[in-house]
């Protein structure tokens, strides 16, 4: 398949089951909502080292939030419910409770609930107050700037993580330009996040390593500086490869996001140095969800 002169490999991205949640963070203004959300989703690029993968989904106007203040919604994903609960509580305590004027609310309905402020309330040392409003329980915790308001729980849903595609270009600058275009387009898609810095990852990995203690290592087949010495996946004209990883609430959300991203990246075209679009997989043996590039782009 060729899109604007860019070759689309006949391959697929391999993704995994995850547990996900959404939290709505509001504050006095967007500046402070972003401070809180950025801290909450910081150091959350990969479950391998961070426990969770998290990111800002989108901005919310005052009309869209429970307390009629501007805010942002964040998505957070983990490999299991226990890790998700633990990470959410830790990040709520260190990033939202601490942030001036910030408040937190559930952003997804589910029969499975996980704690948002349920345990955090004890910070109030007995002065915390519960309020049941329109069937939802909230906690008011006295803090030095006034009162911290948080919903007691948020929903936890089954989700998918690890959707991805690779951008292969003739230079580092061109690969990054294509990825930036893709990320800007993908930010408009709901229910997904791209958890890596700026949404882009340069250190794609393969399973295993020559070092026994490491279970993942550099994806040498896509490293341009190793072209001559390994079984490379790159042609002579490829000098840089970058990857965009997507976590989402459903298969359709990720597929839609990948389509939008790939089309945006390809809009720079072969003349812009974009040569190929590929995807990362493990032979289809590890992840149950396969995003076939040709089917997505139909």
């Amino acid at each position: 398949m060729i899109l604007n002169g860019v070759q689309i490999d006949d391959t697929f991205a391999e993704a995994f089951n995850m547990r996900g949640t959404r939290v709505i963070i509001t504050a006095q203004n967007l500046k402070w909502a972003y401070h809180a959300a950025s801290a909450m989703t910081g150091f959350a690029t990969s479950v391998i080292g961070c426990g969770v993968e998290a990111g800002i989904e989108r901005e919310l106007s005052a009309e869209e939030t429970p307390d009629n203040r501007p805010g942002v919604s964040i998505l957070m994903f983990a490999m299991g419910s226990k890790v998700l609960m633990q990470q959410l509580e830790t990040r709520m305590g260190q990033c939202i409770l601490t942030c001036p004027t910030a408040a937190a609310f559930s952003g997804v309905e589910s029969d499975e609930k996980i704690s948002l402020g349920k345990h955090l309330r004890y910070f109030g040392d007995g002065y915390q107050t519960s309020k049941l409003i329109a069937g939802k329980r909230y906690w008011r915790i006295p803090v030095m700037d006034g009162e911290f308001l948080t919903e007691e729980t948020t929903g936890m849903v089954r989700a998918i993580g690890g959707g991805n595609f690779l951008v292969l270009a003739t230079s580092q600058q061109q690969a990054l330009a294509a990825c930036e275009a893709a990320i800007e387009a993908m930010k408009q898609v709901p229910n997904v996040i791209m958890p890596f810095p700026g949404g882009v990852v340069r250190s794609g990995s393969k399973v295993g390593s020559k070092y026994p203690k490491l279970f993942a290592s550099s994806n040498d087949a896509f490293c341009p500086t190793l072209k001559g010495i390994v079984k490379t996946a790159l042609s002579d004209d490829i000098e840089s490869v970058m990857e965009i990883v997507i976590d989402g609430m459903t298969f359709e959300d990720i597929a839609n996001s990948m389509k939008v991203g790939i089309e945006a990246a390809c809009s720079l075209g072969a003349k812009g140095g974009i040569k190929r679009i590929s995807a990362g997989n493990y032979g289809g043996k590890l992840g149950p969800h396969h995003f076939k590039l040709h089917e997505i782009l139909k």
Partner: protein
Amino acid sequence: MTALTFTLKAKPQFKLNCGGLTPNKLADLSITQIKTLALSSNSNAPKVSDFFEVSGEDASHIIFKNTCAECDYIGHHMKNGQITVEGNAGDFLGANMRGGQIICQGNVGDRLGDMMRRGLILIDGDAGAYCGSRMIAGTIGVYGKLGAYVGFGLRRGTLLLTQTPDTQATWLDCGTHSLPFLSLMFNSFKSLKSKFAKLSSTRVQRWMGDASQNGTGEILIIHR
């Protein structure tokens, strides 16, 4: 389905105990059964039909019409649903309440929400003495004037007022604040047939008490 409606036929010469007429107690009863219910546990107690016209069938929303100060214990031990009082109410409205909401468009007597544990009570008119006495949790709003000893023995919960009550030594002024939870609460009031539906200011004077009970409840006086 229309709300189950109790219309008072005439002002009674003595106090009526309306405590049995709550959504949770009437949920599985037919109109005929409701009409023959006794209004107290006394052997010679009057029946519901002696004083009320009964209509409608949805017991999850009960409406009292033409009621007066002789109608005590409306919403007593209520656990769920809604009660709307289109008139005045007597003493102990919402006493021992465990959930649901009561909206009274008139005045109420003494001991409003006595020992209330959960739920919401909104009063458009005035309230008598000992409003929120021995309250354990929940929210009571009074739009009008209040009698003496507001929040007597209150442990937790919120009294939302638009007028400043008489000061008491066991209620401690914690200053004026903008409380974010009020915007959520006022949003939830917007669909209600109550004066509270028009509130929007989250700026309140906050008193905490009742200190005589080591209470951590609050009286919030809205700055309009």
